[in-house]
C-alpha cells in the first residue's frame, strides 16, 4: 500500500521548512537579490527576528548576505547561493508533489 503523502514530510528540509524562512527564500528565489527592508516587508518580522533567520540561512549555506554603505547609510542585501537556489527549488517541487498527492489521497 502507498504511504500517505504526509509520510514524505519526514524527509523535508527542516532549515527551509519554517513559515518565515520559506517566505524569505521564496522571495529570494524570484529575484537576483533583495534588500533587508524588502525582506521585512515580505515577512512582517521584527528586525531582530529577520536577522536571526538570515543568520541561520547563511550558516546553512543557503543565503549570502552582503553589507555596505552608501554615503552614511548602511545597506544589507541577501541572495541565494547556487546550492541554496537548487535546494529551495527542490523543496518547492517536493511541496507541490505532496500537495497534489494529498489532494488525490483525500
Amino acid at each position, binding site marked *: 500500500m502507498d504511504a500517505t503523502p504526509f509520510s514524505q514530510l519526514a524527509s523535508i528540509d*527542516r532549515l527551509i*521548512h*519554517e*513559515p*518565515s524562512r*520559506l*517566505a524569505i527564500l*521564496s*522571495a529570494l*528565489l*524570484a*529575484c*537576483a*537579490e*533583495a*534588500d*533587508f*527592508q*524588502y*525582506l*521585512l*516587508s*515580505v*515577512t*512582517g*518580522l521584527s528586525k531582530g527576528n529577520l536577522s536571526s533567520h538570515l543568520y541561520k540561512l547563511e550558516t546553512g549555506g543557503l543565503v549570502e548576505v552582503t553589507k555596505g554603505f552608501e554615503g552614511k547609510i548602511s545597506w544589507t542585501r541577501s541572495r541565494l547561493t547556487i546550492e541554496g537556489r537548487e535546494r529551495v527549488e527542490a523543496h518547492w517541487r517536493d*511541496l507541490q508533489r505532496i*500537495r497534489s498527492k494529498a489532494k488525490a489521497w483525500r
Partner: protein
Amino acid sequence: MAELTMHDIERSGQVRAVTDNLFFWQGLRFIALGPVMMLIAYVTARPEMGESASTILLLTSLILGTVATHVLGKVYQAMGTVQSTPGAHVRRSRLKWFFVYPIMFTALGLDLAYPLPVLLTGVTWAAALIAYRRSTGGGRNHYLVLAAVLAAFTFAPMVADLDGPRMIGVLMLVLGAGFTVAAWLDDKEMRRVLQGV
C-alpha cells in the same frame, strides 16, 4: 519551530509570484494612467474642441500622467527593493512586443477604419488583459472582471447605434475607469501578500 500550514505554503507561493513581478503589482504607480485614458476618450469624442486645444490637453495630461507615475512610484521606496533576475522575462517581453501589442493595435485600427458588426478591440483586449494577469503572477481576480467587461464590448455595435470611433471612445472611458480601480486593487492585494508593508 513553527509548523508550516497550507496557508503558509500558499502565501510563500504568492510572495514568489509578487516578488518576480513586483513592478506590476505596485499598482499606485499606474493609477494616474486611468484618468489619462478617460481624458483621451473624452477629447477624441469632442471634435468641436478644435485640434490645437485637444492636442494641448492631451499632451499636458500625458506629461502629468508620466510625472504622477514617477512620483507615486516613490511611495514604494519604503518597502525596500529587489534586483530582478537578469533575463527572467525575455519570453514574456518578446510575446508582448511581437505578438500581443501588434494584435491589440491591429484590432483597434480595424475597428476605427472598417467598423464591423462586432468590436474586435473588445475581445482582443480582454484576452490581452487575461494574458497580462497570468504572466505577471496570477491572483488579482479583478482583472477577470475587467476582461469580462471588455469582452462584452465585442457585441456592443449590435445593441448601440454608435460608429467605430465613438464605440472605441466609450470602451476607453470604461477601460480608464476600470484601470484606475484595478491599479488600486493591485496595491491592496500586494499589501495583503506582503505582511510587513
